[in-house]
């Protein structure tokens, strides 16, 4: 019995050791960049070169910035330009750089009960969905996509109350699936749409509006506000992601021949 007990204790002590992670950089990012597989495409090379793991915490842009405001991550990759500027101006972030762009699109059920198919004007599409009271599934999580959607609604001046307006409170993929199940309309970034296209019954309704532009930025959490953040590592990651090599990798990350993101850091990509 004594021997068994000692063995058990030894085993339990061994567990915490295997939990040690080594050198780590924490990146909070939007659900879309992670779920489309882009980060898996560009991060391993950085991890090898710098002998450090990047721990990706995949949440909405709003939550990513909130986590960074608490000092719980070292760097963020987000898409919510106005909120990013506020984040930097308030002293939480430094050295924001453009990374890449794509665009948002509006999807809807094939029979298109609100009659928005083929529109270019996103606001007009929202007006029609509103007047026909058709299901619209919103992220509802203060993510970059949700912020964009709220901006669009504000521009239309319409109130979003009623059974037709559903707030999912979940990531992009989950919201997309919910819209699919409910035969609703949904605002989604093109990369996530293309990644899930074959599993969806929804089809592309609205694209091409200048209002639907979707830029991504990377920001280091300020070492002046939080002395403990791994600022040098964060800057190394920013340098890698905006480098011509990585920008080319972003450009070449395609799904069935379609690019998901267009690199936009100065000096890299197109």
């Amino acid at each position: 019995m004594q021997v068994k007990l000692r063995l058990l204790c030894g085993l339990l002590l061994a567990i915490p050791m295997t939990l040690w992670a080594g050198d780590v950089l924490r990146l909070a990012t939007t659900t879309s960049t992670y779920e489309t597989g882009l980060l898996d495409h560009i991060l391993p090379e950085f991890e090898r070169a710098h002998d450090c793991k990047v721990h990706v915490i995949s949440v909405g842009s709003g939550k990513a910035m909130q986590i960074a405001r608490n000092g719980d991550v070292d760097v963020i990759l987000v898409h919510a330009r106005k909120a990013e500027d506020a984040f930097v101006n308030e002293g939480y972030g430094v050295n924001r750089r453009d990374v890449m762009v794509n665009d948002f699109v509006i999807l809807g059920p094939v029979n298109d009960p609100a009659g928005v198919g083929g529109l270019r004007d996103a606001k007009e599409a929202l007006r029609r969905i509103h007047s026909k009271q058709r299901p619209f599934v919103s992220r509802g999580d203060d993510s970059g996509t949700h912020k964009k959607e709220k901006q669009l609604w504000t521009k239309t001046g319409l109130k979003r109350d009623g059974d037709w307006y559903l707030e999912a409170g979940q990531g992009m993929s989950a919201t997309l699936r919910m819209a699919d199940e409910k035969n609703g309309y949904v605002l989604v970034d093109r990369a996530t749409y293309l990644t899930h296209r074959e599993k969806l019954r929804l089809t592309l309704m609205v694209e091409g509006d200048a209002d639907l532009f979707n830029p991504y930025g990377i920001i280091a959490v300020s070492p002046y506000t939080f002395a403990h953040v791994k600022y040098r590592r964060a800057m190394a990651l920013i340098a890698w992601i905006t480098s011509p090599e990585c920008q080319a990798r972003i450009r070449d990350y395609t799904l069935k021949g379609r690019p998901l993101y267009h690199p936009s850091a100065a000096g890299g990509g197109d």
Partner: protein
Amino acid sequence: MDYIWQGVRDSLRIITGLDREFLSAVLVSLKVAFLSTALATLAGVPFGMWIAEKRSRGARVIMTILNTLMSLPTVVVGLMVYSFLSRRGPLGELGLLYTPAAMVIGQFILAFPIVAGLSASAVVGLDKRIRATAFSLGADTAQSFRMFLREARYGIMAAIMAGFGRVFAEVGVSMMLGGNIRGYTRNITTAIALETSKGEFAFGIALGLVLLTVALVVNILFSLFREWSR
């Protein structure tokens, strides 16, 4: 129906192929749940036995509190521990948020009331004469403790099992405190949540099957222990 069968078939391939991400999630689940249950056992069993021995009003209040905490929602524990472990919180210096250690803390808080409360019930349920006999034979505190432990071992084992079941199956604490980081804090339940949201049912089903299998194995070990200690 078709896609469910497809999912089950794919899931078997994932399990037999020992997919790396899959194995990692299983290992994280096992490590964190075992560790938190072990800690809850070390703290909860003696506490439960001690509280069972006290027949005072304060003890009854504590028992009621323990019983209430058994149904503590995981997300509430997650939120509480999160606010303590965040860099903005009182324990922020430790930098524990989004690590397996944070998950262990959260799961410990989930398991402790169950282990303590059910252990107390197991001891209270013992024949009163055992206690009288122990004292009449001149047993000291340590000796009577060991005796109660032996007499109530089935109930206490059940308490530990229930605690393990709770933390092994929970998702709220793991998601909020671990952050679902692949290969590090992603466990079976958070992986299922993620894969389902992506519409990847096969991976989720594979993990679900493992979750059930592990629960089965643990229960078999438990009944073997019962046989062995009889």
